[in-house]
């Protein structure tokens, strides 16, 4: 893509008027996206993207430019324009580039860009048929199969030189079920940093079945209760609450900006004793994993909360310098068009000791939240809201009627202290996280957890 010599020339040009840090991020990407809707393959689209982002840091300021080209002349020209933003007279020099190593290594078997469109079509048709066969109440099925193959090259003025090649494959299924005047939706996705061998381990029809079941189960939903109740959050996607309500507050750009409730809390108790939370970008083949982050820092496992005590933030180069804390490998970016900043990778509440059945048995009246339709949080305050897309009443320690229209509303730091029980059934779920206009792949995760009380918003009583 680009050789070390050219990279060094560009880096030196970036620093020629006194810049303190220079970086080149090069990306070459091929992507394929196929969409099934209304019983037919509605859309098949592919993309070829090639480009480079240049970053210059001087004092607290970041200067960034990107171009859809890898030509040396154009790179040098852009580097020169950026360098003009710095008015210091002392030219700095880039250090010699040396290859970075990462513990993360995966083996791809079936490269998705080489899989024939007909095979991809077959997967989607199979998903459609399976979901529709699940019940006569299934009304509509939408499914997306998308994959990317991406080559990345990162070099910076501190001598980092990192190369990566990664592959991602994703299948997402949306199902609508109708019964009388009730319309319910179900959603399930399967996504890994893997090729099409993914579908040999987990069959597309299993994903379709799960999405269909969710929609069907919810057809008989009654109005959700409202008020303050104990809530059990199911394993896997339930981890989105931790991601949204706590994870974002641990991203160090929020700490630097004094916009996080977790500022100055390292070493302090912020959660129940039983809570240990981890961000681990080294989990093999997981959706949020990578070899290097968007700044060339190798992936690593970071314990965020250990037995209730805040242990670490998630850092990128800029916040690590500012806070004088070590890098954690969380400086991520959507593409060469974007400035990296601290992001989560695979973030989860670690497994506990209790049996999920016993946790359920301990609640007399409450809500069991299995799947969420997403959430939103104000990181400055920790206030959050989550829509429950699959939820049930808990009555005398047993699952009762499914409920509709429910949301959980509360405050992240408060909820962390209200986690009363953690199950032994840790599971993960893939998704995308948006922040400052950039979307990156993430996994959330958790075992079954019990929250002693939280506000449930619904329309029933």
């Amino acid at each position, binding site marked *: 893509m680009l050789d070390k010599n050219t990279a060094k020339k560009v880096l030196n040009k970036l620093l020629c008027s006194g810049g303190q840090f220079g970086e080149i991020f090069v990306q070459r990407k091929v992507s394929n996206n196929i969409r099934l809707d209304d019983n037919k393959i509605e859309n098949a689209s592919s*993309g070829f993207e090639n480009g480079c982002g240049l970053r210059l840091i001087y004092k607290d300021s*970041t200067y960034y430019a990107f171009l859809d080209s890898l030509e040396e002349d154009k790179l040098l020209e852009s580097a020169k324009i950026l360098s003009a933003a710095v008015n210091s007279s002392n030219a700095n020099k880039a250090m010699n580039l040396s290859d970075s190593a990462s513990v993360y290594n995966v083996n791809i078997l079936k490269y998705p860009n080489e899989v024939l469109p007909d095979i991809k079509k077959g997967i989607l048709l199979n998903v459609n048929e399976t979901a529709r066969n699940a019940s006569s109440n299934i009304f509509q099925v939408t499914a997306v199969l998308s994959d990317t193959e991406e080559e990345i090259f990162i070099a910076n003025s501190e001598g980092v030189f990192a190369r990566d090649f990664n592959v991602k494959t994703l299948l997402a299924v949306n199902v609508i079920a109708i019964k009388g005047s009730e319309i319910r939706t179900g959603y399930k996705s399967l996504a890994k940093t893997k090729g099409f061998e993914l579908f040999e381990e987990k069959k597309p029809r299993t994903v379709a079945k799960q999405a269909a079941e969710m929609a069907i189960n919810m057809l008989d939903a009654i109005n959700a209760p409202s*008020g303050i109740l104990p809530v059990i959050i199911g394993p896997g996607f339930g981890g989105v609450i931790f991601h949204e309500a706590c994870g974002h507050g641990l991203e160090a750009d929020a700490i630097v900006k004094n916009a996080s409730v977790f500022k100055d809390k390292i070493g302090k108790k912020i959660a129940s004793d039983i809570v240990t939370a981890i961000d681990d970008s080294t989990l093999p083949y997981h959706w949020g994993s990578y070899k290097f982050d968007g700044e060339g820092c190798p992936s690593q496992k970071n314990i965020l909360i250990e037995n209730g005590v805040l242990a670490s933030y998630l850092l990128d180069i800029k916040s690590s310098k500012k806070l004088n804390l070590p890098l954690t490998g969380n400086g991520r970016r959507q593409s060469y068009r974007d400035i990296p900043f601290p992001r989560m990778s695979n973030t989860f509440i670690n497994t506990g000791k209790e049996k999920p059945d016993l946790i359920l048995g301990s609640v007399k009246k409450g809500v069991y939240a299995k799947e969420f339709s997403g959430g939103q949080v104000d990181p400055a305050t920790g206030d959050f809201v989550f829509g429950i897309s699959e939820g049930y009443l808990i009555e005398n320690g047993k699952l009762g009627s499914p409920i509709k229209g429910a949301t959980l509303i509360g405050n992240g730091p408060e909820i962390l202290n209200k986690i009363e029980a953690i199950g032994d059934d840790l599971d993960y779920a893939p998704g995308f996280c948006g922040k400052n206009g950039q979307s990156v792949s993430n996994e959330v995760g958790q075992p079954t957890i019990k929250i002693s009380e939280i506000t449930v918003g619904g329309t029933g009583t």
Partner: protein
Amino acid sequence: MAELLKKEVAEKDIDLGRKISLLLDKTKVDEYEVYISNSIDNEVEIFEGEVESLSYSDSKGVGIRVFKEKKIGYSYSTSFEENNIKDCIEKAILNSKITVEEDINGLPLRNEYKYTQKPEIEKYLYNEDFFKATIEDKIEISRNLEKIAKGKDKRISGVDSLNYSDNFSEITMLNSHGFEGSYKSTSCFLFLNIISKEKEDTSTGFGFSYERDPKKLDLEVIAGEATKKSLMLLGSKKIKSKSADILLDNLVASQFLGIIASILTADSVQKGKSLFKNKIGEKIFKLNVNIFDNGIMKNGYSSKPFDAEGVNKGNTQIFKDGVLNTYLYDCYTARKDKTLSTGNAVRASYKSTPAVGVSNFYIEPSSKTSLKDILKSIDDGFYVTDIIGLHSGANSITGDISVGAKGLWIKNGSFDFPVKEVTIATDILSFCKNIEAIGDDLKFFPSGGFIGSPSLLIKDIAVSGI
């Protein structure tokens, strides 16, 4: 940094498009369309008086849509060498092999345009003065905003985010029916989210503004709005669950309207995903509400001379006196319903195929009822100034809406105390039916399209707290 701004306006995109067309002419596709987007973006982020980040980009991409044997294939590229374009075309053709064959697939024809007149809108999309502002000017504007906001009140403890962004873009389209067109636009956007603190309580509030020329951004208005919103929520309390009349701030109302807009596209109706299916001619609103999708509004940021398939844009009245009048169409959905395209094909970028979407979509404001008038009429109610979780809490297919809300409680026609951590729950059709009053303060919110609403009073909504 001034040179970052210089822009040789790319007159050459049309030539590039013609070259790509020549390559496509040599293939065995039946019809094709070439969409080239060329844009320059600047972004400035300020934190505590300093430039936190500054970015610049000059980017260009092409999206190629082919029709072969009544099937559609798509591919895009950011490289323009002949071999790159050939790869891109080849991939588009390969993709067309697996998509569904439908007789109604095909490029738009002239007699399928609802608006036959090419609108005179281009001159309003573009302001030459945009290029006079240097990057230093933009930094200065952003710094001033921070200063003004922080000076508004002692309780303001900091800025959560302050972003200036602008865009110059040129869209060029060609197709095998001989369509050739292009337009330029400039826009800039300034956004502020501030944090205020009093004792242990923290709250945030945002303000924003957009213009065609950065010098026209009104900093006082942005700072005033963010400050007011943030401060008025300090010391907020939880409330008991009850059913109440709610008064939606115009920006909150436009976010709700966005959900409604998304199911008025013919695409969602034809796929059975819209609650408005089979409701043409029905009175959906109790009031005589008028809703428009105006793609040629002079001050509309989604205005364009032609849509993502090259069809003329126009002004479509979707609701007339509360009655559903029409859906929004692109060419494909119009053929399916045996009607004309309203010019509502949109694409997020050259990376996406055209789909049906809104342009400038809004509720016509009242000519006489002000926010104050509505407020005075409420004995016991909730003024909602901010909602969170709309994307997770609103299901446009089932119609259920349940979102977190903050705001002020209203007692006997005036504000009583701030409220937090409540959810408001309703469904889309009841929401429409229960609109009781419409304000005169139309404001647009840029989300997807450009959605605008005045303040709205809604009767009997479930408000749940403790």
